[in-house]
């Protein structure tokens, strides 16, 4: 005895203005009667901390319930009977009424470390008081509709960077400071989600042999203070040749990235508020709801170019946080705007 959901698209990606289509597949050994089949599509924002470090956050962990950003429900069948064997019941549910005010924001599906935006579709087959109702749930993915997307830029915007001992704000190995190093290159500052982060890099000089060069894609979720590494990609392994251009080519991880979400001034002030109050202020449920409903969170991305030099010291700290400033490490971080293109 089973009820299953099958969406029309295998990748389960839908735009808000598209109907969510699919079929309900039931398999019963004998025919059963029901009191209606109901389909529900919901969208929720979850704020959570996974093994976080901030004590404050922990205090409201568990307090905040998922915040609902969408809830649509339709009855697919009124009460009746379903025959034995396999039965397929097609459905179609409109997520956003056409012509409705577009100001209501449909966030894209996103699974971050602290924020996740998830859309689910659930089918319920009600069978009265005596029987447990049968149900099935499936996640579907929302992406911004094509019409609202930007045209892909002809040439992605690039920033030029150069990294020397002078651009570093933390302490470096003495040999590096005296001997010097210079790494130059350019890297995308805007990037379509479908494209890799591109650019190039040249080690022009280095007094200390290079251990590796990594590109870190940082995701900044502003609901809590801090950033997380979404991906880490080595582009050079070992002491590479000088003056040979290395390409930067980082494929964006699909579920860990989404278009940059910025809430403009409000967001900035909120973040600053958040910073100010992080130690003392515990938000109440209502305040959080308010916070979320007015686009109060942001998801931003940055790219770090991290050069690790060969050093005996590095071996002493094998499990060190790659973002932490270290004597044997030089880095440059540039902001990256991600957007979805047609």
């Amino acid at each position, binding site marked *: 005895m089973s009820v299953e959901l099958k969406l029309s698209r*295998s*990748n389960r990606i839908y735009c808000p203005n598209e109907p969510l289509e699919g079929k309900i597949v039931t398999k019963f050994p004998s025919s059963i009667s029901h009191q209606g089949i109901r389909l529900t599509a919901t969208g929720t924002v979850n704020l959570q901390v996974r093994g976080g470090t901030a004590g404050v956050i922990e205090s409201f962990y568990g307090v905040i319930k998922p915040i609902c950003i969408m809830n649509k429900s339709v009855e697919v069948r009124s009460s009746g009977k379903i025959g034995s064997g396999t039965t397929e019941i097609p459905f179609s549910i409109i997520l956003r009424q056409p012509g409705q005010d577009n100001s209501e924001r449909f966030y894209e599906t996103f699974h971050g470390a602290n924020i996740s935006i998830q859309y689910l579709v659930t089918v319920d087959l009600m069978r009265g008081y005596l029987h447990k109702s049968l149900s099935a749930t499936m996640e579907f993915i929302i992406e911004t509709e094509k019409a609202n997307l930007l045209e892909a830029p002809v040439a992605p915007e690039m920033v030029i960077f150069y990294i020397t001992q002078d651009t570093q704000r933390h302490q470096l190995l003495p040999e590096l400071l005296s001997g010097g190093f210079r790494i130059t290159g350019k890297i995308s500052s805007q990037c379509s989600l479908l494209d*890799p982060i591109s650019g190039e890099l040249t080690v022009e000089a280095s007094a200390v042999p*290079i251990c590796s*060069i*990594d590109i870190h894609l940082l995701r900044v979720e502003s609901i809590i203070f801090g950033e997380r590494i979404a*991906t*880490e*990609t*080595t*582009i*050079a*392994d*070992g*002491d*590479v*040749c000088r003056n*040979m*251009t*290395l*390409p930067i*080519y*980082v*494929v*964006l*991880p*699909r579920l860990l990235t989404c278009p940059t979400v910025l809430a403009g001034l409000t967001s900035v002030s909120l973040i600053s508020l958040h910073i100010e109050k992080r130690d003392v202020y515990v938000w109440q449920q209502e305040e959080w709801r308010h916070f979320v409903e007015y686009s109060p969170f942001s998801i931003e991305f940055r790219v770090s170019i991290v050069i690790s030099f060969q050093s005996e010291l590095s071996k002493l700290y094998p499990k060190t946080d790659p973002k932490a400033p270290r004597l044997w490490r030089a880095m440059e971080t540039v902001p990256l705007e991600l957007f979805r293109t047609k």
Partner: protein
Amino acid sequence: MEFRARDYSAEEAAYSLPRVRADNHPLATRSSSRQLFDHDHYREGKTLLVFFDSVRYLDMLEETAIAASSFSSRGLTYSVDAKDHKNNDFFDPLRGPNANVAVFEDVQDGQSTSTRGRLSNETALQLSMKEWASFKRFLMQKFSVSKTVSISSMSDVIVKSGKAYDKSSTSMHLEELDDPQKFAEEDVKVAKLLMDTSVLQFYPALFVLVTDVIDMLGDMVWERIKRKAEYAENGTKFCSLPDNFKASDICSDAKETCYNWFCKIGSIRELLPRIYLELAILPCWRFLHNQPQDCLQRLVMMMRGLADPLASAYCRLYMAHCAQKLQPCDRGYLIACVNDIKILLMPIVSGNVTTKGNSLENGKLLMSLSEPMIEWIMKCIFKDSSQVEDILVELGLGRNQSKFSGTFPSISIVLHHLLKELPAEVVNSNALEIMHLIECSNDFSFDQCLNYRLIGFKMCERRPQMDIVNAVVAKVFQVVTQYDGLDEYLKVMDAYLDIVLQCQLDNYLTMILDGISKRACNRRIAENELGSLQSIFIKLLTYFNDLEDAFALNHFVKILDVMYGSSRNVVNTHILNKATRNGYIRDPTTIQLLFEISQALHDGIDFSNMKEDDKQQPARLISRFVQMVDYGADMEHHLTFLVECRGAFGSINELKETLVHTSNYLAIKAMKDANKILNFVKCCIAFSEVTIPSISARIGQINLYLETAEVALLGGLVSHSDGLIDSAISCLQNFDLTDGSQVPFDMDGILSSIRKICSLLVMVPGNPERGVTYILRSILSFVSSESWITPRLRIRTLCAIVSLSATLSQNKLPYHANNIEVLGNDLLFVGDPSYHQELASVSGSVLQNLIDVIQQEPSRAARGSIALEACNCIVSSFKVGYMLLPTQLELIKQILQLLNLSNWEIFKEAISSVWKAHGTHAWSLESTMLIILTICESNPLVNHEIAQICSKLVEIAKSCLNANDKYLQSTVNFLDKQSTFWRATAVITSQ
């Protein structure tokens, strides 16, 4: 019992076939047809070139100095000798079939290369995948990990990831493959193994193992996505992708899956596994883009991030392999690859950067490990390419600036493999610039002399214009004369020798030999140097038509003397081969030299330990040489030479036979030469006599004794001849004592020797002192006493004795010794009754035994046939009587009573009346008459015995054989006819 009288000359005239002169001598045609053969092949131009090369190549199998240092998937890369083949005597038509195969393969190979463009992608792909498979095998073999590599501390990666690898190889089972995610994870682990280069020697083997696994992943992903693009979820096929499908042919679902794979691989943190896995699924880009080749350029760039030279070299190798699957494929990325490799290797070869372990040793190891990659990529670059010039420009060597500008720093090993792939024409047209380039790139990555050597071979392949040859050779000699080491000197000279010979640059030839002699003499030659020397000698020998010209070269013999071991043997073999090919050898110094060479060859062969085949060739060659020596009129000298040979080559049996033959030949020659005294003949015979006992094969000994005995007889030396025959017989008698029991006796051989003795005895004058039948009796006692002699052999020997006795009893023997001083028995014993009696008594004792011996033969069929054989022998040797039935005898008696025979008419009438009176129809008139006459003519009692034996034999045969047996029938007929024949004769003579 009475011997039948025979007229041999009449019989010969009656039975021989008429002789007709043949139009062509079957052996004489050989030389002309060979020329034709040569010519035909010559016309085929290039094919022939390859043909000769392959022949040459076969011959130089041992000479692998080059092959050892370089890899070539086709065997013939180096065997390039563009000799003037018209004069090439080396060519052996008997080798044709063998070498033809090689040609065929090679030509096919060549065709497939040239037509590859027209082949379908699929076939070309399969072809290149085959090449790759053999390349991998080569890698595994060349860098076999079976040797122990001592490692001070096992790196973590190996230990940890070793487990991962085990796991993944076991997880290669099908059920695991259902979960592509998991599979890919395992593959990442496997690919990570390649990040570890701590034990350099392991790397190639590791590479092969790992790439095997991830290739499998690549194939699976390809199949999976292709399936998605062709089949709907429910398994129905909705489209069939053509070979050259476009990205637009692919449904979005399949594209999505494909994109997912690239995302998954793109998110691998480490650079090396990320590149490897993307390469593995590289062909899948075709599902997404129409220009998937564009990715290669990026991947080449990404590899620059791999700082470890070995890891990055092998990564490029893998790319070259994977890119083959993207056909058609431009070679831009490969060029970029080579240019990057040069930048990567430059600091290492120039010593600016310290490699692991900091030593030159390690650097060299690194180079040798990287070499297959350079070679493979060069091969890919020049694969079916016609724009060689463009490639050179792209590689930075083009003629756009100052033609192969020497300013471009080049690495020896890269240069080598580039040159190796360049067509000979291109090398020729840029020879001088290339020389300059080689001169500039002298580093430890590859021995510079091998590059010079390579140019030498290329020039032989297609000979450039004379001025270029001169300039290049001058340059090379200038460089090479600086070399102190013999090895490198030889390696280069070996390559240029052909061109020096062909262009007849004699002064250079002298320089080469001088140079070798200066460096080689007074020191021990190393193994690899021997290989080069061997090749040089073989080239010289092949070039000179006349061996004496080669011997006349400065230092030739001196250099030959410094060689040793198997190379020396090979060269010696070649010399002897050549020496014995062109007819007799007459020059005494050449003979002396060849004798010494033979001696060296003989001493170099371990006759006790070698396989039969290995020692046969030298033994045969030495024998052939001894055979071909000819001192002309100076026969004494020749005999002395034979004596020397006997001393020197004691262990070659074959040779001793040759010596005996030759000395016998000398004796005959001396006899023909009227001036020669008998003493020399005696010397020759004595030499033979002394030599024969040392031959191990008994039958050979017997035959040689007989041959010598015949020669002695021819020389009138009857007592010598007797002695030799005695030796032969005692040899025969000692048979069972010496020849081991394990070898079954060669019965036919013994029989033929016995028959030979018998036929010789026809000529040998009987010795009255010992009795004329002394020898016959010894043979008889031998065959009847030895238990190992089979009944068959015994019967045949008895028959031979009977035949001989019958022959000796004739008034005129069928043949005589070709010497007037030697009288035959027919003249010696004219009218001597005791002589005939003795012969008859020998035959008589034979006949007594005959039936008993035949009964001993176990096999029925054999028994029947030897009975017939014996019967035939007896019938042709003796007069046969006629067995009369009692009624017939009665009849005859009546006739005799009735008739008083006075004339023929009455006689006939009388017979017919008797005949009528008896009313019998059994006999014809003629036969009746003949029977009567028979009885009247001869003594019926004597030949009655013979008739009895014959009829017994026929009975035995009838009991053993089918009545329809042809042999039986013909024997019965013969018997009948013989009796009729001589009875008719009797009738006619009585008239």
